């Protein structure tokens, strides 16, 4: 059941960084989180797009950089922590599909797998490490800090032709669980959430002939993720940190809520199984 946290869903003054913030889910998150009062910095590769999105969201800080490039990580982290004066929430959203069009693993070039791993695993790892000081500083001062890693049901299910993406997202999802185990004590919560199949450029790249009307709107996924973040930073309701089964790491199987912590609406989520050609 969808939870609209009208009273608690506000994120006034919460400092949020979003990678991949100029298209798809990332762009929708920039809009949703700034609307809820968060102070947002977003990262994307193309200066023109960053400037465009920054013009449309004058309260958000645009940062040009590529999380897949090791050399870009600290310049990105410097600008995030500098502009926001610290950081409460990091959303690792930027993703690479791997080969496009999709290909069998046996036909996937090593370089294509490397790029998927660089964007989907190493980038979030490096950026999280670089910003961990800021995130734990926030937690030490009594705020709740959160790292949200955007996942996929391809992280769990073995879909043919989704090898590079699926393997990298599986690694990210597992890494998220270990981060969460290790850093709970420092006050940083790690979430892995599957937003569901959305009408985004990445999905169009993967499944060019899919009917967008059957896909979830990124705006509605952004609302669910924002609810999950709001629940985690305010510690309300769905914070299930204690206990053996962390629901914060969303189950990606179709029978379970897409955005596992809060705000999930399983009705609107077709899942990859349905949307594959």
């Amino acid at each position, binding site marked *: 059941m969808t939870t609209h946290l009208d009273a608690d869903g506000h994120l006034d003054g919460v400092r949020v960084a979003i990678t991949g913030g100029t298209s798809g889910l990332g762009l929708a998150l920039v809009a949703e989180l700034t609307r809820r009062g968060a102070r947002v910095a977003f990262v994307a590769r193309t*200066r023109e797009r960053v400037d465009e999105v920054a013009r449309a969201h004058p309260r958000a800080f645009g940062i040009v950089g590529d999380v897949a490039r090791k050399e870009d990580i*600290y310049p990105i982290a410097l*600008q995030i922590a500098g*502009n926001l004066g*610290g950081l409460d929430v990091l959303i690792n959203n930027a993703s690479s599909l791997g080969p496009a069009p999709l290909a069998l693993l046996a036909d996937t070039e090593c370089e294509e797998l490397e790029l998927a791993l660089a964007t989907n695993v190493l980038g979030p790892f490096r950026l999280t490490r670089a910003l961990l000081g800021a995130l*734990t*500083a926030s937690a030490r*001062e009594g705020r709740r800090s959160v790292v949200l890693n955007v996942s996929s049901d391809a992280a769990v299910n073995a879909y043919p032709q989704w090898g590079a993406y699926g393997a990298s997202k599986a690694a990210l999802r597992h890494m998220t669980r270990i981060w969460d185990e290790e850093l709970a004590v420092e006050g940083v919560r790690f979430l892995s959430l599957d937003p569901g199949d959305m009408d985004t450029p990445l999905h169009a790249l993967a499944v060019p002939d899919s009917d967008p009307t059957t896909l979830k709107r990124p705006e509605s996924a952004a609302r669910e993720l924002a609810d999950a973040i709001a629940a985690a930073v305010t510690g309300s309701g769905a914070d299930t940190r204690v206990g053996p089964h962390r629901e914060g790491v969303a189950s990606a199987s179709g029978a379970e809520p897409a955005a596992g912590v809060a705000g999930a609406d399983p009705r609107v989520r077709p899942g990859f199984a349905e949307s594959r050609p």
Partner: protein
Amino acid sequence: MIAANWPLQRPRDARLLVVDAHGRIAHAPRSRFIDFLKPGDLVIANDAATLPASLRGVHVPTGAPIEVRLAGQPSLAPDPERASVWFSAVVFGAGDFRTRTEDRPLPPALAPGDRLVFPPAATDTAGVPPTGVEGLSATVEALLDHPRLVLLRFRGPTQAVWAGLARHGRPIQYAHMSTPLAMWDVWTPIAALPAAFEPPSAGFALDWGSIRAMRGRGITFATITLAAGISSTGDPELDRRLPFDEPYRIPETTASAVREIRTTGGRVIAIGTTVVRALEHAAARHGVVRAGEGIADQRIGPGSPLRIVDAILSGTHEPGGSHYQILRAFLDDATLADADAVLEARGYRTHEFGDSVLIERQETRCQTPYICDSVSDQGLVTTAA
């Protein structure tokens, strides 16, 4: 001492020299430094991240190449409401870090109103900077009583200044290093707010495993943020003015942890001289540490009262610099000379990536008899024994 010249924050063979309140000396692997602490102690580190404070550029009026090293700022973070960002800066003439700062030429004569430009590094294949990317530029606002030292104004918005620093700046480099330093070399694991001009390098000793181990032993970990200024300019006249004023901030959770420790007999262990400077500055007026921002403008040296800090983990420092002066507040010169002789004889490494010392304040300098008693019962060295 030998200069540590490889940028590894926590080399496996890093060593620790411990000098306890009785002047007793012990040696240990630095990774075991928490063995010298005890339950109830409070460890406080500086979580400032390091700015890419070295900018290569051109002095527009003369066309001469220069290097600017940002050295100080009026507050911890630039005010986003203001149209400009100000830094004090040390300006060098031609050359780079491979030349010792002592041997670097003066910049051309600088005057208020002079423009300095820092050309963009990132260009496309045709050598043209990407659309909308401008070279970072600054204006000399004032000379600060020295031909190298100026107040610079970078035109805002602050966002553009951050982007410019990210694009053009590099960490301040050292002639003794065998390889240029990258940002990841100089950010400590706990680096948070980018505010330091040189790394608060005592924090290199910390990793998340040691912070976790502290918690496991009932030792509290807390942080302050102090915009650590440059440690040396190579210019004797300027170096005599160090340390420059350094803005700092003490979080409420840290201030209350310090207050609490005074009632429980635990010790305050500062990770680095910058932490000593912030805490002692904050306590100077009222004797207790209050949360909030301040500007540390005091000098700490022999005879300076230490109201808060009981022990310091620090890099090894060569006699003379302002960091070494701070160590002199912890113990008498004879004991410090003994420690220096041991460091020298045992081949300890010095500078940012070198070995460390853990120095407990001598009991004669204790301000609080109750704490003195507990220290004399259990000095650092006996704690670990």
